């Protein structure tokens, strides 16, 4: 709430501008499509669980892409799965964001050289906003990726859409 200002004595009135208001609303409740593919999914589940809570940032897992804002692609992306991910990504309503979690979806991971069935990086199919490196990244690393995404959303402008 640091960039919404209180101007009046009555605390229920807040004066701000449209950009800040929209950005604050969007970054405070990023609902994610529960999309875990491989080992990184376990770290994502650990991040959502009690110790490194995701819910305190407003991120709750939703079963359908139509209800969500963000997709965290965690795990190895095969060629077969990449076509399905593209379809799910197109089903998320705007404004939508993509976090690529782990080495496999950043750039192919340990399968970069000989993997005949692995897509070497999710950014060959969908536009990625934040890359979180690690194999798998620790929950704190995924949380930092989420904070970087929130910083990115904070400076958007309503007049020019983000994509």
């Amino acid at each position, binding site marked *: 709430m640091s960039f919404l200002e209180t101007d009046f004595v009555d605390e229920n009135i807040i004066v701000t501008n449209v950009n800040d208001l929209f950005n604050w609303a969007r970054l405070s409740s990023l609902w994610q499509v529960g999309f875990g593919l491989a080992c990184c999914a376990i770290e994502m589940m650990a991040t959502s669980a009690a110790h490194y809570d995701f819910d305190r940032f407003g991120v709750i897992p939703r079963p359908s892409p139509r209800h969500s804002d963000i997709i965290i692609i965690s795990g190895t992306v095969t*060629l*077969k799965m990449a076509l399905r991910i593209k379809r799910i990504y197109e089903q998320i309503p705007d404004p939508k964001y993509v976090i690529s979690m782990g080495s496999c979806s950043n750039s192919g991971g340990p399968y970069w050289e000989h993997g005949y069935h692995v897509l070497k990086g999710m950014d*060959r199919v969908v536009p990625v906003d934040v890359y979180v490196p690690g194999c798998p990244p620790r929950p704190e690393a995924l949380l930092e990726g989420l904070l970087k995404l929130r910083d990115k959303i904070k400076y958007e402008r309503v007049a020019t859409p983000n994509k």
Partner: protein
Amino acid sequence: MKTTVEIFEALKTNFGEAVELYPSPEKPESVKVTPSEIINVSRFLHDNEAFLFDSIVLLSSVDDANGTKVSLPDGSFDIQGGTLSVVYHLESISFRHKITLIVKTDRANPVVQSVTPVWNGADWHEREAFDLMGIIFLNHPNLIRILMPYDWYDGSHPLRKDYRNPEFYKGMKVN
């Protein structure tokens, strides 16, 4: 409990020239069977009261890479001639004995009888051998690709030694 040599003796009386010890009679590690007789040998081993091999533990394919290497201008190579092998590991739960069967087929036209009618567990293993090595199994109930996408390029089998990645697949850069 029977050893490989005892089982081989019984097979030899029934199938004659189609079976032999592999790699040699001095080192009887497994039994080599011709590709067309494998279904009869399997049925015999499965049904016979003395052996009762009721469980297929593993079916895998091997690229022997024993043909001639033809070098191509861009540094890669093709292998022509030679053999591909299919290895069957069988086990009997009642008698607790095991045996390994090997089938060798030509690389140019790899065709083997499927053992799915005898052991249902061989179904997906044979699909994997077809997908990744290109060995065609006759009388298989559903011989389609299992790991690569269903419309992957024909004749492109990743686990061969002379496999090269294609450039693009449906607009995605593969390399």
